[in-house]
């Protein structure tokens, strides 16, 4: 009796240690974000005098409005991160939409309308998931230059579509392959054509993978820095480039509260997506690695 009681205690202690460790790890991940948010609400005087980890004595939104629309970034006339943020929105919407539509159609064909060589085509397309983009930067900039698209939003969107279509196709194809094929076979026998089957049967079944793909593409494209820094000029630079320019422009004293507010602004859209639809975000991440 006493023995089993001891065991019970050991078990409870073990659980306590386990939860303790889990909470410490959680703090490690959360602390930078919390500190960043707290710092963004403090004034520079308070930061200079105060501590890294300290509850803000004052609460001000000055750093936020500085980061959003007042701080001088580079030589551009529009101040703050706002123009960059708007560029990112203009970039991400068409790029996500086009790459997702292409991916859905490709996945549909590769699952239900296979033709000779379609498997080879799919395999050949997958290199786009693994390609280090350095291998295509030079020719892509030459091509955009010769098309007159260097530094334009159109060029940037085109680049994101082209180098995102492998992932979107992979997502849709792997999802469609697991749908019951009888559905499509029966519809074909009934005389339904390519588009009818797609819009009436396949598309209504596609909601989960559509969400996964849109979230994946949104996160990838919003967070991209390499294409932004290589293929855009100040009129089309995305928010990641704006943030980097803002933080690394070395005029005057470093304003850590403004830097942190800017970092949160740049991260906000993807954080919101993650909090609202985290399940789908994780599914997208693991879909690329653990193949179904």
């Amino acid at each position, binding site marked *: 009796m006493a023995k089993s009681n001891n065991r019970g205690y050991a078990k409870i202690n073990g659980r306590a240690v386990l939860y303790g460790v889990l909470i410490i790890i959680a703090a490690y991940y959360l602390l930078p974000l919390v500190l960043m948010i707290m710092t963004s609400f403090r004034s520079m005087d308070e930061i200079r005098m105060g501590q890294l980890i300290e509850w803000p004595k004052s609460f001000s939104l000055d750093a936020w409005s500085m980061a959003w629309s007042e701080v001088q970034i580079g030589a551009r006339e529009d101040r703050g991160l706002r123009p960059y943020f708007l560029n990112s929105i203009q970039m991400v919407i068409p790029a996500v939409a086009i790459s997702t539509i292409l991916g859905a159609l490709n996945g549909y064909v590769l699952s239900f309308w296979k033709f000779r060589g379609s498997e080879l085509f799919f395999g050949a397309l997958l290199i786009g998931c693994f390609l280090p983009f*350095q291998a295509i930067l030079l020719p*892509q900039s030459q091509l955009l230059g010769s098309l007159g698209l260097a530094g334009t939003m159109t060029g940037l969107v085109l680049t994101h579509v*082209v180098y995102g279509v492998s992932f979107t196709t992979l997502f849709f194809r792997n999802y469609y392959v697991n749908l019951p094929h009888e559905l499509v076979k029966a519809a074909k026998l009934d005389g339904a054509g*390519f588009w009818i089957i797609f819009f009436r049967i396949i598309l209504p079944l596609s909601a989960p993978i559509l969400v996964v793909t849109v979230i994946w593409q949104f*996160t990838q494209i919003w967070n991209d820095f390499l294409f932004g820094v*290589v293929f855009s000029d100040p009129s089309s630079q995305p928010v990641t480039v704006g943030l980097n320019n803002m933080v690394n422009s070395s005029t005057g004293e470093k304003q850590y509260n403004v830097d942190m507010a800017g970092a949160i602004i740049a991260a906000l859209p993807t954080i919101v997506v993650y909090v609202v639809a985290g399940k789908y975000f994780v599914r997208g*991440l693991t879909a690329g690695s*653990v193949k179904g």
Partner: protein
Amino acid sequence: MSVSRKKGLDYWLPKLVVSPTLVIALIFFYGFILWTTIISFTNSSFLPSYDFVGFEQYVRLFLNPRWLNAMGNLLIFGVLFIGICMIVGLLMAILLDQNIRAEGAIRTIYLYPMALSFIVTGTIWKWLLNPTVGIERFVISMGWETFVFDWIINPDMAIYTVVIAGVWQASGFVMAIFLAGLRGIDTSIIKAAQLDGANLFAVYTRIIIPSMRPVFFSAFIMLAHIAIKSFDLVIALTGGGPGNSTDVPAIFMYQFSFQRGQLGVGAASAVIMLMTVLAILVPYLYSELRTPKNG
């Protein structure tokens, strides 16, 4: 007549629909890789030229101490980043696999850095690691006055700060992959082992972890891919400095191609990066494509 026309349409339409993507693959993937490779064998400087010089650019590349330094940094960063992410990710996955209450919430916290841009991660850690405002100053003010944590401004240690920030961002992702792997294991084997008297440690080390080999493999591939491409994190965190102490191949390629007008050397470095990815990937894909037939 109408039937055969319809059949014809259904025959051509699928091919027509995938044709834009076929063009993308042919031009933007394979064509561009070929073009970069060709440029790497020419004496292109500011503009592409087609005067072939053999392996001269590769010789120049590998005689360049900056490139060797960048490759060395990638090796240090890659090994530590992948190794620590795997260990931390696996431990977190095992801890979370013990019927934890609020598992969803904890998982959400561990994984959120993956939703951030590397530029944001770099900005945060640049501030935290800055000795005059960040962690060092905090610990000193807590009373430990001789505490030094100035890796980010120390050329010998700066590359390790990239590891710290990289692990913070990506280890939760590895946890998610491993957790999915753990959940996919047939629980009846584990129960049988436990009935035979195996303790939890033995169950993990003897049964569970060995059966997750494919999951380890894919996590490794994903992390290696992130490491080789790493550009934004280093730019935002250290800018490649102090000096060139945190230079990596992706920064080298960018600067030689787009800022120094040495397209030939830039292309050669890009080809080496591609080869490195392929060298890791091809054996993986080969084994991946073979297994379904055996099983």
